[in-house]
């Protein structure tokens, strides 16, 4: 869900008109124009709001250099899954209509300050960025392309986890994507994982946490199990900053937290260290 929610700004005429919004981080009112110019980052508290794949690509990839891979890969309904609310087929169709995407990730190649890389960007708007057959296939094909072309692979995660509607087939995408990463490791091809809000479950427990370098955006929620599940299990309240990027940095699972405005240059710098060819 985006942070531009009319419910949180109810009764405020200016907010209703979309002039300004309430930041979910610090609750202060910010001009929508200012927020947009600031890469959807709150100028007061540095809250990083979620980006669409397009916004992310515009931010990271040099203009005009992006070439998308496998955009035609799309969902099927292998389990003919129907739950209390309706069918997976309908939900997937709605997600496609809403986002213009065929799956929860866009992959391709493009330049970062002139260095050609393979990139994947997950989009939380598409069924919560969930990992399923199509997502797994696109990640694997991107990793294989990176291997063939000897180019670094950079993957931005944003996901609630494995997509339940494809059942065990979704679970297996964890093994599938990690098999692809394992080939990159063996060939010394850099794999950089960037965790954005949120990165959970089957995605954190597969490709997102095994980067040669693991980066995270400030304040992103990252974890294996959900906070509520853990609280119900251990019957204790968890610290406020539990499962934030900063918490993961403290516990040794993230190499660095990088502000959105600095991400592109940071990635470029890292690539300069991880390239064997170009000294």
């Amino acid at each position, binding site marked *: 869900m985006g942070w531009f929610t009319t419910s949180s700004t109810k009764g405020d005429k200016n907010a209703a008109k979309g002039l300004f919004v309430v930041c979910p981080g610090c609750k202060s009112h910010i001009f929508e124009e200012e927020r947009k110019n600031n890469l959807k980052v709150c100028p007061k508290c540095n809250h990083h709001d979620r980006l669409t794949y397009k916004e992310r690509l515009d931010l990271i990839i040099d203009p005009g250099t992006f070439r998308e891979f496998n955009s035609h890969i799309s969902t099927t309904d292998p389990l003919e899954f129907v*739950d209390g609310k309706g069918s997976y087929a309908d939900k997937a169709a709605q997600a496609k209509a809403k986002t213009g995407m065929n799956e929860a990730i866009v992959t391709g190649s493009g330049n970062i300050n002139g260095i050609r890389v393979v990139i994947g960007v997950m989009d939380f708007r598409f069924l919560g960025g969930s990992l399923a057959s199509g997502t797994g296939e696109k990640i694997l094909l991107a990793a294989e392309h990176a291997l063939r072309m000897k180019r670094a692979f950079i993957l931005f995660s944003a996901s609630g986890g494995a997509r339940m509607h494809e*059942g065990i087939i979704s679970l297996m995408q964890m093994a599938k994507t990690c*098999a692809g990463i394992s080939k990159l490791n063996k060939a010394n091809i850099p794999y950089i994982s960037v965790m954005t809000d949120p990165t959970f479950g089957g995605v954190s427990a597969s490709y997102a*946490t095994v980067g040669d370098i693991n980066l995270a955006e400030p304040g992103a929620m990252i974890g294996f199990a959900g906070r509520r*599940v853990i609280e119900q299990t251990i019957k204790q309240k968890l610290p406020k900053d539990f499962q934030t990027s900063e918490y993961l940095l403290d516990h040794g699972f993230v190499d660095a937290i990088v502000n959105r405005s600095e991400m592109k240059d940071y990635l470029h710098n890292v690539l300069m260290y991880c390239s064997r060819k170009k000294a």
Partner: protein
Amino acid sequence: MSLDFEKEIADVEKRIAELSALDKSRSPKRKAELTSLKRKVKSMTKKVYSELSPWDTVQIARHADRPLLRDFIDGMCSEFLELHGDRHQGDDKAMIGGFATLGGQRCMLIGMVKGRSVEEKVESNFGMPNPEGYRKALRLMKLAERYGLPIVCMVDTPAAYPGREAEERGQAEAIARNLTEMAALEVPIIVVVTGEGGSGGALGIAVGDAILMLRYAVYSVIPPEGCAAILWRDAAKAADAADALKITADSLLEFGVIDEIVDEPAGGAHRDPETTIAATQEAIVRNIKKLKRRGAKRLVDQRYNKFVKIGRFKHARS
């Protein structure tokens, strides 16, 4: 203990037990009645077990009398030298492993411990490993690789433990690391899902060359109760979720997620553990022998191909 759908069978079984205890003289009439009751139980069991719903199967997979890892080890292995610890954090009692010999084959055997008594259950955290469990498993797998030993992973867990320390010590990373490393191990890996295959917690030791599953085991992306709570907003709809998720051995075989079903006697492993354990041992040994003939490179290539071809998607024209 009997399950709901087994109630009628249990009633007749009880009757047989009563009659057998009563009847010391073995009159021909009683004898005939007993024989007919036994025949009845057999046919009832056969019928009930041929019509199990996925949710019934979940109950069998979690049955209190279902053989657990220690039973399999006792029944299958002529030797088991347990090796402890992950060398970083501690020794997870929910995940054990060690050198094992089955059917004359030396291997590294790893699996989850659920425990039968209350004390055992608590000690083994109800079969829910912490990150150090996955790291111990990986340490032992790497050890096996150095000495060319095949690896046998026995899966029976509700889930990786969802706890505070588990998160702080990197539950996600521990599982992810295993998935990545197991893809490239240069020795045969045989996986057997014996009871509950609980999501990423199960998969963390379940990447392999031959994935076997017992007839009444289940393997799922999320427990049916959890799925029901999220998608039905009602945990009581677990049976519906179990149906929808397609978590039984037959479905998994159809999806190409598993390679072989190890049969259980009608009535399930909890009625006849010995037969089940013997069938499991036979299947493991047969697969070890087969996979040992595959060279390291072919082994890794075929494992890769096996996992990367899992998935059902289409090519949309847009």
